[in-house]
């Protein structure tokens, strides 16, 4: 009874499907895009690969930031550090 209000962290991300999300990777890479979905299993325990649309990829290099536009990607979940719902990315 007392646990019904608790939301697991990944259930929060499930609520973000269809809206913009900012993904920060282990390395000097970031992505922003519309979250289209991710694997059901083993959700909501472990974050797996996710599908993003209208993506901007930000790559931070010693020469400065490089951005790439991508229409639709399947992003490997292994190297994800942080997800920011509604995040506009590093340039906002």
């Amino acid at each position, binding site marked *: 009874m007392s646990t019904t209000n608790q939301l697991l962290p990944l259930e929060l991300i499930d609520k973000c*499907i*269809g809206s913009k999300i900012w993904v920060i990777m282990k*390395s000097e*890479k970031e992505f922003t895009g519309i979250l*289209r*979905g*991710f*694997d*059901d299993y083993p959700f909501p325990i472990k974050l*797996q*690969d*996710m*599908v993003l*649309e209208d*993506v901007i990829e930000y790559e931070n290099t010693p020469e400065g930031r490089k951005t790439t536009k*991508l*229409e*639709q*990607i*399947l*992003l*490997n979940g*292994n*190297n994800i550090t942080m997800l920011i719902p509604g995040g506009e990315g590093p340039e906002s």
Partner: protein
Amino acid sequence: MQQPPIQQQQQQTSSPTEFLNNVIGRPVLVKLNSGVDYRGILSCLDGYMNIALEQTEEYVNGQLKNRYGDAFIRGNNVLYISATKLRE
């Protein structure tokens, strides 16, 4: 004058499995964690993101370095698989 229904404005969700089913046979860009890009026709792949590409082009720092007829990419190296949207 009618507004389009909301269902038409918002696209349905697309799970990784659906995405993969949609991109088989289409030209894709595969980026590895090392930063190397591979462009080619996706012939097949599995749940580990192991990938078989045809007519593969290897780009290092954005420059074409190699061409392979067929290439197998081990899934652990893959950062993302990118495709252009299907237009109906």
